[in-house]
């Protein structure tokens, strides 16, 4: 018997169900704005799939909850009940509750909790169902000892429908001893016969320890396609002895009692990406081209005549071109549309604006813009924070907007687009803009600045990114989360990106997040430090300078500073930081690379710069362990390994050292 481990389908089930929940949520929100019947159908389908899947894959609690949701949706679908705000609200809560259940399922925890149980009852009440107690199974009827007499007359269409009496009779014969008598009374002439229609009938006698249920199960699919009678054969005498106790065959009924299975926690969290067939086809094409080029180059191996140099060069150029295309295409596989992140915002915006008594119209632009999967997974939280921030602090209440001569409804736009080698995500609101005075006062109060004199608008904007800064005049439950704009900036900078803010007093605020296209490849500057080689990401580099010995000042505690564009910056000697042998010691013998992250700068002291190159990032954690100040490793053309500098991490290390 083949045994199939059903847990292997859990991951796909989780993925598709979470997508289904997203679809369900957006359909519910659209319905809230007055949608059509197709929306109800798509909501129903999503709930229905999750119900079927959860029952099949061993999550009975989830199946029970979706069952209640489904019956309510079914009433809406077939018009027994009109959709209203209450139902939409209830369904939105179901979506949330199911998301929680999926979270717990992935962690291998019990799925149901007080919330889900309560919601299940609410759904059942709304659908007018009482949750049935486990239905008592009808006691198995004893088998008729004398056997069964069966009259079976199929309707004409049974054969075409795929139920072959031959199969049914074979199944009966497997239950006991079967005596078959065919009835030909309704058979037409050959001429008049439609051979796809059934005109035969049968009288059957089945003996053995067979229950009526077992017989009925054989005919289960054809009840509507035949005339059927199943009667016990009455033995003349003596009266039937108490029948042997037989257990009803659990043919169809067995499904009612879903066997709970332990939700095996999948430790494999490597994640997966769905890839469009066109992308795969593109890759296959490119590999085909590569093979051709390789074959072309191969002919030079045997005999190379200098007169064919031009051809060789052409072949090599082709190879380079194909390799580059292949690299781009492979990177493309990791790219996913940002729409999957944007999707959560309609709900968030709706809930938040309702809570705050604001009217907000959300515009999503550029949902098809693609981002690296890793970037995509990590950009969600910062975006949520900025959107909350925009609704909480940026957009005004309708009366304030009216007073400012604006329409009641504020607009919040999320837009993603490509710019150069980067992805830009803008969060634009048409609210009041930054409150310059409030920010300066707060900064003074927190000791972030000494005086409010001569501070530019850009500098005011920068202030809100300072750790511990909070602008809310009233602490709402939305902003009191202990997560500030500094964390947003930190998260974005961990992704190799930047956040900036632009305020238009009275007209709104724009946050601009700029992200690298991919985390898998970076452009870097290769620098030698003793026997080692380090890659410094190009995006972080401001300038590299050679310093005379007297440009460096030692400070108490062992640090070094140098003057750069009117400011003193700390020097990080990489050979000291990472313990490299044979490195240059004198400042004048090497170079200082000025790097920047989060608005802070430091100088990295290296022996010399070797050149610029693209580096394919390999995880150091996966292959070795995490090292502070290093974001990964790459393999150089000669096969040796170079480490990639984590500029943000080094700067954090530096400031910690300074504070210590």
């Amino acid at each position, binding site marked *: 018997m083949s045994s199939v481990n*059903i847990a292997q389908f859990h991951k796909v089930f989780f993925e598709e169900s979470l997508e289904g929940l997203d679809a369900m949520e957006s359909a519910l929100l659209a319905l809230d704005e007055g949608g059509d019947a197709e929306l109800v159908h*798509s909501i129903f389908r999503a709930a229905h799939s999750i119900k079927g899947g959860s029952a099949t894959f061993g999550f009975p609690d989830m199946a029970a909850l979706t069952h209640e949701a489904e019956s309510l949706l079914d009433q809406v679908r077939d018009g027994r009940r009109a959709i209203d705000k209450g139902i939409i609200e209830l369904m939105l809560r179901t979506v949330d509750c199911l998301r929680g259940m999926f979270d717990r399922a992935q962690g291998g925890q019990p799925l149901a909790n007080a919330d889900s149980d309560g919601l299940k009852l609410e759904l059942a009440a709304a659908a007018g169902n009482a949750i049935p107690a486990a239905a008592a199974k009808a006691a198995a009827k004893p088998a008729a000892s004398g056997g069964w007499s069966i009259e079976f007359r199929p309707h004409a269409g049974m054969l*075409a429908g*795929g139920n072959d009496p031959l199969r049914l009779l074979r199944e009966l014969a497997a239950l006991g001893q079967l005596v078959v008598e065919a009835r030909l009374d309704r058979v037409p002439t050959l001429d008049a016969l439609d051979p796809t229609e059934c005109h035969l009938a049968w009288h059957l006698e089945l003996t053995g320890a067979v229950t009526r249920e077992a017989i009925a199960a054989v005919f289960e699919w054809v009840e509507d396609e035949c005339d059927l009678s199943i009667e016990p054969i009455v033995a003349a005498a003596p009266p039937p002895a108490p029948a042997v106790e037989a257990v009803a065959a659990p043919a169809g009924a067995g499904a009612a009692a879903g066997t709970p299975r332990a939700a095996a926690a999948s430790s494999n969290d490597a994640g997966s990406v769905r890839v469009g067939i066109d992308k795969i086809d593109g890759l296959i094409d490119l590999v085909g081209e590569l093979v051709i080029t390789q074959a072309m180059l191969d002919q030079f191996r045997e005999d190379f005549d200098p007169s064919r140099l031009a051809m060789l060069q052409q072949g090599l150029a082709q190879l380079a071109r194909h390799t580059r295309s292949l690299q781009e295409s492979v990177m493309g596989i990791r790219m996913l549309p940002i729409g999957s992140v944007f999707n959560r915002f309609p709900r968030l915006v709706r809930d938040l604006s309702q809570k705050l008594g604001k009217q907000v119209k959300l515009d999503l632009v550029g949902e098809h813009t693609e981002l690296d999967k890793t970037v995509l997974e990590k950009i969600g939280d910062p975006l949520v924070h900025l959107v909350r921030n925009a609704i909480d602090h940026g957009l005004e209440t309708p009366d304030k907007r009216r007073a400012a001569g604006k329409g009641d409804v504020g607009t919040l736009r999320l837009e993603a687009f490509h710019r150069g080698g980067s992805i830009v995500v803008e969060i634009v609101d048409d609210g009041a803009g930054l409150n310059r005075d409030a920010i300066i006062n707060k900064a003074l109060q927190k000791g972030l600045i000494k005086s409010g004199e001569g501070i530019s608008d850009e500098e005011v904007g920068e202030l809100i990114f300072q750790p511990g800064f909070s602008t809310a005049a009233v602490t709402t439950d939305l902003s009191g989360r202990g997560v500030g704009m500094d964390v947003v900036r930190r998260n974005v900078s961990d992704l190799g990106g930047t956040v900036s803010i632009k305020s238009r007093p009275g007209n709104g605020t724009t946050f601009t997040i700029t992200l690298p296209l991919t985390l898998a490849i970076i452009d870097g500057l290769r620098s030698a430090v003793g026997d080692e080689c380090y890659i410094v990401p190009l995006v972080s580099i401001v300038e590299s300078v050679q310093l005379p010995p007297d440009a460096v000042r030692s400070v108490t505690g062992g640090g070094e500073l140098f003057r750069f564009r009117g400011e003193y910056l700390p020097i990080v000697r990489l050979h000291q930081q990472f313990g490299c042998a044979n490195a240059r010691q004198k400042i004048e013998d090497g170079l200082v690379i000025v790097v920047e992250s989060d608005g802070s700068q430091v100088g990295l002291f290296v022996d010399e710069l070797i050149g610029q190159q693209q580096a394919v990032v390999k995880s150091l954690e996966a292959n070795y362990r995490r090292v502070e100040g290093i974001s990964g490793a790459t393999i150089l053309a000669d096969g040796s390994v170079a480490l990639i500098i984590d500029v943000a991490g080094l700067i954090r290390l530096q400031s910690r050292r300074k504070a210590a």
Partner: protein
Amino acid sequence: MAKILAVDDSASMRGMVAFTLRSAGYEVAEAENGQLALDTASSSRFDLVLADVNMPVMDGISMVRELRTRAEYKGVPILMLTTESNTDKKMEGKAAGATGWLVKPFDPEQLLATVKRVLG
């Protein structure tokens, strides 16, 4: 070995069905909605069709109705994959020409038992 067409918009359910049947040696083609199933059923003939009821683009019931109008699918078993709550759907599927049904949830063993039953 018999050829089976598995139709379900849920990748996990389709995956489970296809994997189970392939493990048992059947040849399996997959389609994610009724329309695609009809296309697949045109290019190749199947000995059995397993179809979900609720699917986008074209649902399972419309698919069965269409498939049964084709001479080469007369008598070919078509089973609807339906849920317990959907008793109406069972009958609707039957009226459209389905052979029978398999009630979700089912496990791989139940699936194989039913498939063996209809394929003989």
